[in-house]
């Protein structure tokens, strides 16, 4: 099990950030997520696996400046 923005979400072997966002409704526009304390950006979504028991946060569009 992982938690996405605090809500439980089933974990499965090999799940990547890209796969997770496909699972979630309306999450296609996220460009950055945080897995525990590590920021992952869109260019790395497909190759970044999510470990079991992780806290995943979908970061809103980056505000900058």
């Amino acid at each position, binding site marked *: 099990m992982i938690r996405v923005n605090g809500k439980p979400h089933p974990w499965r072997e090999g799940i990547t950030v890209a796969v997770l966002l496909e699972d979630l409704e309306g999450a296609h526009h996220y460009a950055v997520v945080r897995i525990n304390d590590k920021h992952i950006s*869109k260019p790395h979504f497909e190759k970044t696996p999510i470990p079991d028991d992780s806290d995943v946060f979908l970061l809103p569009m980056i505000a900058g400046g």
Partner: protein
Amino acid sequence: MTKFKVKPIKTIDYDKPAIEKGYAGQTLCIDVSIAAIFIKPVTDKIKTVFTGGKGFDLWLLWHAVSGTTKWNDPENAICIASGPMGGTPIYPGSGKSIVTTISPLTGSVIDSNVGGYFGPYLKFSGFDAIEVKGKASTDVVIFIDGINAKVQLLEAVGLPEESYDLSAILTEYFGQGKPRNISVVSTGPGAKNTLIGCLNFTWYDLKRKRARYKQAGRGGIGTVLADKRIKAIVARWDTITIDTNHPADVAALKEVGRRHSREIVELDPKQNQMATIGTTHLVTIMNDFDLLPVNNFQYGRHPEAANIGQEVYGRIFDAGFDGCWMGCSVACSHGVKDFVPITGPYKGSKVFVDGPEYETIAGCGSNLGIFDPHTIIEMNFYCDTYGLDTISVGTSMAFAMECFEMSLINKTHTGGIDLSFGNRLAALEMLHQMATGEGFGRTVGQGVRKMKSIFSKDYGADPDILHDIGMEAKGLEFSEYMTKESLAQQGGYGLALKGPQHDEAWLIFLDMVHNFMPTFEQKAEALHWFPMFRTWFGLCGLCKLPWNDIVPEDNKNTPEPAKVMKHVQWYAEYFSAVTGRQTTPDDLIRMSEAVYNFQRIFNLKMGFGRREHDTIPYRAVGPVKAVEYESRRERYDKQLVEQHKVDIEGKSTAEKIALLRQFREGLYEKLKDAVYKRRGWTPNGIPTVATVKRLGIDFQEVLELLKAHGVEE
């Protein structure tokens, strides 16, 4: 303890006005040339048209200077204001001051938005703004004592040069056992030996028992303060509650303030974690999207970027509350405790460093090819204590380094220093030279525009290449984002009133990553709405971070998520609750439009403010050198073929660079046309008579100025 003396030159006692719905209703003017202190009323019309903050500053500055005033003329004024909501303890980000003056870098109006307690203390002492002009014949300190309703101009002897020491001494001296009652505005020795001096504003950190810093960094305002021989401006005030600002509707204010504050406390840990890592989270994200400036904005990515990212600084920062305003739940002003510099006058001593934030990390780190977090902290510390703007230091030094690597300058010019990218000791040495005004550091401290002139005229460097790689516009150094792949952000920088600073419009992600604005009209709309709304924070004494750095969880489902309209609505409620003026989100934009257009016309008064002044260097638009093109060849080749229908077969890199440049520069000019039209300006970038009339800024002087530039009804 440093021995120093202060002696009153002039003292006035005044009747402290009751703060009414966020306004004191008067401003303070001090002429240090003649030791004059006087008070001016704020009329209802000025409140209605200019709102407060930067609006009041600009109005005061407009009347202080003429179109021929130079930055170091006595009549140039430094104006500092809070705003009607400034000093509200319950609402996050409500302690900002905004500073304006005629800039030594641009020759026109500069504005800089800064945290710390000064603005609210000034207002509660009885003044919506302070205007300081003249030039003192000795070092002076200005003391605004709101507790005893007294303003003093003091001669100062023996005060230290370095800003941290100066602030600590003045906080203790004027605080009389209550240091939290004091906020100090000062600069350091670098300010008088360069054109890129900053102002340090203090807030007292009760837990760490020390005066902490925020900076009004941009445009050399510290240099103007030093030129006036003003060592510091000190404000003193007592306890602040929600009632101190005498808001029109306390219950409504409490409700909206608690709502916003609670949301930040709940969501910040899930989102950007501003309260623990501040803006450092941007470093690796910018790097991932090819937006982190590396080696003078040549590249947007570097394999060592993680060394200077949030995971590293998160471990280095001293844990604890870091709000630069009382009770602010964003609390992003982090610092480093017991840092030991390896160079300079503080070598081997333990010091506290306020920062670094993203801009400093990118400017004094990646853009110099430096990926050592401790060097960046040391650069941060010395910039602050010398009174230097970390952004202009970084961008200026990056330019000098690239010129050195391109052999446009050499060791005979740099005093034997190897200014190669990544040479951290050379970067620190340059910084120390800026502070003392010695060696090549003195040249670098003049900023990019002056360096371009010196390198071409005195050292024989090619002016065209200097123009292409010198990252300044309007005379101000670029802040630290890559814009090559975002036309909207090229406009965000190039069309910004004061020069290329990101506080007007930060559209890179919306444009490049999310593709929210594919057409020129959409880009123009964004380059209208975002600068206007961001301007509004500076009118009111507010920080923009609570608006869009932490957003509601349902924001993504709203029609315009980039605008975070739920928060815009809260800000309208906040303004209504404080001032009693019932306000909608559209009203906020209109308030800003008046001030924004007035500032554009102020640029015109100073000899700028036309289309030609919105030019940006080609490095901001596309690849200048073959090595830049080749590093992203696939991207550029694809654009030439798919977007511009060019047959690139057999074309050399130089030919492709020239073609891409032609297309991209054309797009930027087209963007200017669309934005000017949306803003109600002429094709030459001047507000029309209809625009100034609509906004109520059709003052006689304004209309005459427009007429002199061929703009009539």
